[in-house]
């Protein structure tokens, strides 16, 4: 073991703000294990998954975390592009029709059968995408212009394209917000960000308006409605999920079933929750789909109530705050952007998932980081935590040039 590693190990013992993140991450995982326990054996949830999550994936995640704590950030930066490239190759492999070891599960080919585990490359992509984007943005200022945003967009669109092809809309959804968050942190002009997000929102609004003006249930068998066919660019089931938010009764036993059940169970939890056994019974007979996965937040609210929900959300905030604090203290631009990216992606994903479970967003099929059952997800989220601890443990270089400071190009004078 060389001196550098020993130094690093010593550095890791020094208190740093990323420890809060670690505490939050472990807290969320334990909360998740308990939530999964509540629903073990129900419907599609096999018995023993909670144990697997707690005794296999959590330790594996911590090991992963420990491993990524050691290498120097610069080294990580140097392999950022390479790892991103490998990820893209894996994602490209998955979209090859009938590629071996890529089974179709629930209609999506999102997993690779590694024998020991079902590996979900989209989780790896989240990590390497952030590394690559951070590595790309770290010394530049080109993204202060509109043209300079093209490359970051490309870096985002390539993995998103592959993941959408699987199809795994939920995973793909978090990339764009993460990129914008990193661009904001990196000092891109806010008016550009607003412009692009605005364009996106306008398109989204138009698409949703088209769905609402001409909802799928009014189009009949031939699909002929008030608007011409090209206005409906979403898949039929996606349109129905949007329409289900507006006409929940009409889609009660079909597209809206999942969400109605989720909000009902969450509501049943009240302020303090109904406790484990009662929650188990309620979830069992209300037939909540995916209670250990996409809909686990409802399980939490049902069992521990609004207080449980607030504790959960608070832990995510602690995690995010800890990541941002680490970014603030770090002088290394790569580390800074990585911290922001990791925090952003975890927080975005959690927000969308919770938004679905409390009924303000349509169902997208997205998991709750640390809490939902899933090996790949846990491994790579803990890897993010590990990297942040790694960055936090590094002493800032004395002579480091301040990064992402563009005030001099943007003076406040008329």
């Amino acid at each position, binding site marked *: 073991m060389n001196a550098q590693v020993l130094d690093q190990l010593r550095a890791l013992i020094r208190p740093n703000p990323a420890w809060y993140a670690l505490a939050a991450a472990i807290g969320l995982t334990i909360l998740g294990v308990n939530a999964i326990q509540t629903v073990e054996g129900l419907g599609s949830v096999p018995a023993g998954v909670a144990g697997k999550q707690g005794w296999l994936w959590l330790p594996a995640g911590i090991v992963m975390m420990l491993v990524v704590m050691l290498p120097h950030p610069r080294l990580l930066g140097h392999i950022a592009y390479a790892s991103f490239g490998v990820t893209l190759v894996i994602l490209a492999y998955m979209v090859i029709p009938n590629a071996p070891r890529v089974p179709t599960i629930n209609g999506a080919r999102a997993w690779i059968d590694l024998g020991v585990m079902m590996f979900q490359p989209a989780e790896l992509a989240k990590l390497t995408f952030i590394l690559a984007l951070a590595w790309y943005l770290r010394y530049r200022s080109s993204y202060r212009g509109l043209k300079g945003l093209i490359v970051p967009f490309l870096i985002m669109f390539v993995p998103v394209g592959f993941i959408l092809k699987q199809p795994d809309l939920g995973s793909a959804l978090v990339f764009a917000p993460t990129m914008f968050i990193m661009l904001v942190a990196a*000092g891109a002009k806010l008016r550009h960000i607003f412009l692009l997000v605005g364009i996106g929102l306008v398109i989204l609004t138009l698409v949703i308006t088209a769905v609402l003006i001409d909802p799928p249930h009014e189009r009949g068998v031939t699909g002929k409605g008030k608007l011409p066919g090209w206005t409906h660019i979403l898949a039929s089931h996606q349109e129905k999920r949007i329409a289900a938010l507006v006409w929940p009764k009409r889609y009660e036993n079909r597209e809206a079933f999942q969400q109605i059940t989720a909000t*009902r169970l969450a*509501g049943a*939890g009240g302020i303090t929750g109904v406790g484990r056994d009662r929650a188990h019974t309620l979830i069992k007979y209300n037939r909540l789909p995916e209670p250990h996965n996409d809909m686990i937040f409802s399980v939490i609210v049902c069992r521990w109530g609004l207080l449980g929900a607030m504790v959960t959300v608070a832990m995510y905030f602690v995690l995010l*705050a800890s990541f941002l604090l680490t970014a603030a203290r770090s002088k290394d631009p790569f580390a800074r952007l990585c911290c*922001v990216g990791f925090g952003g992606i975890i*927080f975005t994903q959690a927000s969308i998932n919770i938004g679905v479970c*409390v009924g303000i967003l349509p169902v997208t099929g997205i998991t709750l980081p640390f809490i939902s059952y899933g090996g790949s997800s846990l491994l790579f989220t803990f890897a993010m935590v590990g990297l942040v601890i790694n960055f936090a443990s590094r002493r800032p270089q004395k002579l480091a040039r301040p990064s992402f400071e563009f005030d001099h190009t943007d003076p*406040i004078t008329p």
Partner: protein
Amino acid sequence: MNRQVGPAWWPIHTRCPQAMEGLLPMRRALRDAIPSMFHRRLVLLAVCACAVIVLLVLSAARLTVGPAHANASREAASKLRIVEIVPTVRGRILDRRGRVLAHDEAGWDIAVNYSLIDGSWAHRQALAAARASNPNRPWASIPAAERERLLATHQLDFDRQVDELWTMLGDLGGLGPQQIEHRRTDIASRVQDLKAFLMTRWREELSDELGSDVPLSAVDRPIAEERQPHAVLYDVSDFVRQEVQRFIADAATDRPEAMGMRAWREVVVHRPTQRRYPLETMTLLVDRSTLPPTIADQVEQEITVEGVAMHLLGQTRKIKAEDLTRLNRPFSRINADGQVVYDLGGYSARWPDDNVGSGALEQAMEQQLRGSRGRYLRHLDNGHREVHAEPRAGHDIQTTLDIQLQARIQAIMSPEFGLMVTNTWHGSKASEAGDLGKPLAGAAVVMDVETGEVLAAVSMPAMPLRLLRDDPDQIFRNPEYLPWVNRVTMTSYQPGSTLKPFVLLAAASAGVHDVQTPIRCEGIFDRDHPTRHRCWIFRQYMSQHGPVSAARSLEVSCNIYYYTLGKRLGIPALNQWYGRFGLGAPTGCGVEESPGDLPDPATTYRDESINMGIGQGPVGWTPLQAAAAYAMLGRDGDYIAPTFIIDEHRTSQRRQEKLKLNAAALREAMEGLHGSVYGSEGTGRHLPLEGRPLIFNAKGVTVFGKSGTAQTGRFRWIDHNLDGQRDPGEVIPDPETHAWFVALVQPDAARRPTHAIIVITEYAGSGAKVSGPIVNQIIHALQTEGYLPS
């Protein structure tokens, strides 16, 4: 000075920096507070995150606090309970002697899923197996020819399984391979017919909705029947049921040997409650010795009759979802205020296995027969069961029918007995042309005079359950005989001469005619119009009746006498009197009925009253109304509405009225009816056969009878292809008359008639000749069954 930079759509502070000057101090202060831009951006992100968190927590709170929480709790908890429905037992229908005509019986049916019936199961299984046998080769990448081959090899195995299953089902059900195959194809064609019908309707609806024609493929979706199991073996024994259940249990296991019998997974054992009509088929020995000599025989004939009383009992059917949305008849009843109210009686389309009455008594008596289902609330979490309501069986209803008499009369009216077919003595065009033996349609009613209860009511042709189940087209697509029609209550016929006694009573009671004064018959009613309103004797023999007394007018059935009375009474008075005799309004007998026909005086030509005097023109009654009217005559003018149901509660609701008829006219009428059968000139005395045999030959009774030969209009239309259009060949000009014969039968020991008998034979010829012998046989049947002394 406003310095404009850039186009109008630029943000204001870019275009016109001065506009933002108000914000400058804030930005400056921010920069002073946090000199690092990166840190300011982090704060911005953190603020956004806080906003998101607040939004999420508020959304969660919206669900978990206050009424939303109470609602959600209640709804979530409601899923822990399921309502269990306990079926009820429908009441029985009994005959007047307590014999069971209809009852519920639980039995076992063996049903198979439709995918086995249309063969799609084997194909689907073969496809799955073929795909599974090549896990490493994408199915789409295999060449089409090889795919076909793979599919075919696998399909063989599954086809064999299906064949074995059908053979086994056939063996278990005691059916040959062809019979079971016939059942299979029968179900398939029925479902496909239904689907074709539904698709046509859906397409019309969709085309209407979209305003343009849509292809049939746009509405091609599986109908419920394609997803349901269909019964192929009915009412199997316990042994068969257990065998089948054993097969099903074996097939459900994952053992390798169960692979060869996977088709059994598509088989289910049903326990439907079957409505049984145990006396629907009866075999009787019928005496032929009293028949007209040409067909008489000393040997009794064994006759099996099917569909006994089915026209009156009706049937049951599965409840349909539409029954609840459209509030169909079985669920409507009329309450005390005369309003129609709907009462689902706890029925719901969610449990579509419930039976409801369909037609006749089963439908009319739905409220009494139905009973109510039990409702249990089962708590899934702890297994507790709360009883909300115990099931309550339906009430039995007792009909006035004597099923044995009913069957015997049906036997008498069956074509094989030889009376309800064209015969040599009928005097119809068919009998003169030698076109003999053609079955005739018609109806018979036997009524107890004292009570107005119907002892038997036969409508021919009958409606056997066997045909209803196996070949309903023979019943429902038979435009010539219309076997589904209950002619007793639902067909209004012109009464013809059978109405004459009532015209006499009306004229005498209304004071427009003195029964002692004869009326002269010169064959023609009106000399100015010698072709109109002629007497039958003039038409047939160019003769006349001369002066006719009241009694003789009935004996010889003189038309001129009744033209005169009809004219004197006029339409309003005729209407009023006919109404008192029960025409023109439903009798309230308990089953669906036609009110009969009476003209609207305002729109009817005045001289129609002349025709109405002889029971022609715009007047019609059902055989049941005719029976009620004649029974009234037998009771010396007390009208009692007829009934099919024995129920003290109902008796008080039936119409009962003393009509205060002219006593002399009543005497004359009865004398005329007596003369009609026994008088030398009586129209109901002889058959035109060698030796002039008497029509009525029963000992120990006196018959007061009246024939009626009712004209049936200028043409008869039989819609052979059921398209509602008068196609060539469907219209028969100058059709045969309907043949009526009505009789009041008085046992020698009795003071007045005890039974009224009505027979009508459609398109058959002369009333006395066609229907008289049938009435005679019914009198013998009443003697055989002990209603009349012999």
